[in-house]
Structures are given as C-alpha cells and as structure tokens.
C-alpha cells in the first residue's frame, strides 16, 4: 500500500495544478482593497475647455456611476471607447472620464475621434487621483454606488460581456434607475 503513496500524492498534485490552470484565473489580476470604501475627495480641472471641474461630489451625485481612467496614448482605451459609448446610452448609469497623465489637447483630440461617452471628464496630469484610488494602469474603471462607495474595480478594457455580466447586475443590485 505504502508503495503507491508517492504516486497517489503526485496524482493529487497534478490534479491541483491542472485545476488551477483550467480555472482560467489570471494570477496577475489583483483585487482592489478600495472596494467598499468611499470615493476619495478630489477636484480635477475639466478636460473640456471651459467646463466645470470634475469632483468626487459630481461623480457621487451622478451615481451609480462609472469612473473611467483613460489616456490618448493607450491603445486598449481606443478599443474600449465603443463599449463605453453604448453604456452611456443606458439611462441608469452615468459615465465619467479621467484623462490619466495625458496632454489635454491630445486627450480632447482622442475623444473627438472616438466619440465622447462622458457626462463629465477631468484631467489627472500628475496621476494623483489615480494613486489615491490604487489605479495600476489605463484603462481602468471604478463603479461608484449611490452612497459614494466603490462597488467594483475593473483593470483593463471593459467589454460588452463585462458590461452585461458584471456592470449591469451591479447597477441593478444597487438601486440603479434614477
């Protein structure tokens, strides 16, 4: 019996490894400790020329809302824009944008080219707000609930599937539909 013990252990180990491998879990994905915490206070100058500054109060007032970090130099953001444009048509949610470490003229040109899904957008030139929210790169989106708390953090471009499977259910759960 003990002769087969090492073999059985090995088989168990192989099963564990294969299981983790097939689970499709991304080992580099990080969960955000910001979830459940209130959106930090901020005030960003408007990306639109002569527009109102984007503040935490604007975002919370529009909640449930998505706060999307993007940059004109970011290719996945370009891919994400049509998804955000479709999402912006949904009356239940407001979409806000933050141009991260970007030149304002370049960010404006980017939005002109792809279409502007944002109810309001601000400029985070120094990346200060991004650091406050624990942003790891662009694109990255935060869903803010009506109580001003972070409900969800999505690193990387949102897809239509993410919207249908994650974003919309979260909005419905948290009393979307103003």
């Amino acid at each position: 019996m003990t002769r087969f013990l090492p073999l059985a252990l090995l088989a168990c180990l192989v099963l564990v490894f294969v299981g983790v491998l097939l689970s499709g879990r991304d080992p580099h994905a990080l969960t955000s400790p910001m979830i459940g915490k209130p959106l930090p206070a901020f005030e960003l100058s408007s990306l639109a020329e002569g527009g109102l500054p984007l503040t935490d109060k604007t975002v919370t007032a529009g909640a449930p809302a998505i706060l999307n970090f993007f940059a004109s130099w970011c290719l996945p953001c370009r891919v994400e824009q049509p998804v955000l444009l479709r999402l912006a048509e949904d009356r239940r949610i407001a979409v806000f944008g933050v141009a991260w470490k970007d030149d304002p003229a370049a960010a404006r040109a980017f939005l002109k080219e792809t279409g502007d899904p944002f109810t309001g957008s601000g400029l985070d030139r120094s990346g200060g707000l991004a650091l406050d929210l624990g942003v790891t790169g662009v694109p990255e989106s935060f869903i803010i609930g009506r109580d001003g708390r972070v409900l969800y953090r999505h690193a990387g471009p949102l897809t239509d599937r993410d919207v249908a499977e994650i974003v919309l259910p979260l909005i419905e759960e948290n009393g979307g539909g103003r």
Partner: protein
Amino acid sequence: MRILIALLALFFLFQAEALALSPDEVMADPGQEARARAITRNLRCVVCQGESIDDSQAGLARDMRHFVRAEIAAGKGDDEIIEGLRTRYGDFVLMRPRLGFNTLLLWAGPFLVLVSGFLVARRVFARGKGEG
C-alpha cells in the same frame, strides 16, 4: 584581449549603478533620501509585479516614488506612508509580506517542508541501516 575584458568589467560595473531613479527625483536632504530609498525598495511596482518601485522604470512606479518623497517632505513617518499605499493597493504592494493569518502558510511553509524532509530522511536512513 585584456583590454576587452577590462572594458567589459567596466561596462558591468557601471551597469550595476544604472538606476531607475532620475536625478531630479532625488531629495536634497541625504537623510530623507535614504529613508525614501529604503521605503521604495520595499514597495512593489504593481504594473511590473516582480520589481520594486525603486528598480522600475514604469510611469506608475515613478508616480509612487514621487508620492513617497512628497509624504516624507510633508513630515509623515515611514510606517504611515507604507500603510497609506497598502490601503490603496493591498498587501501585494509590500515586497515583504506581513506575517498574518492569511500569510501563515507562506511564512511557515518552508520550515514545514524542511522538517518533513528531515523526518522522511531519518526514516529512510533508519530502514537502510536495519537491512544492512
């Protein structure tokens, strides 16, 4: 040949000195700068994941270095600064994981393996002696 080796040695010597830190980031006060370096060496770059923010050239790592130095300049303590980043980025941002309930296996694991290896080895050797 000797010159070539000398040149290579020189190359590697200076390569080791190549820093991600650009000169304009360095703090004027050497004591504060030393503190900043010690802190940033123990914070992980969340983009590159294998490097500390002191080593990384990533834009986000540079922002985090700026943040650490700004906090030092503002008179914050080392632990306070590290805790500030940990609440935003999670435990992962620490290069050296904390000893906690969820990291117990991580810290104790190597010792458990060592002890069990020792026990197995002792049994195997004891058996060998008995047969011989």
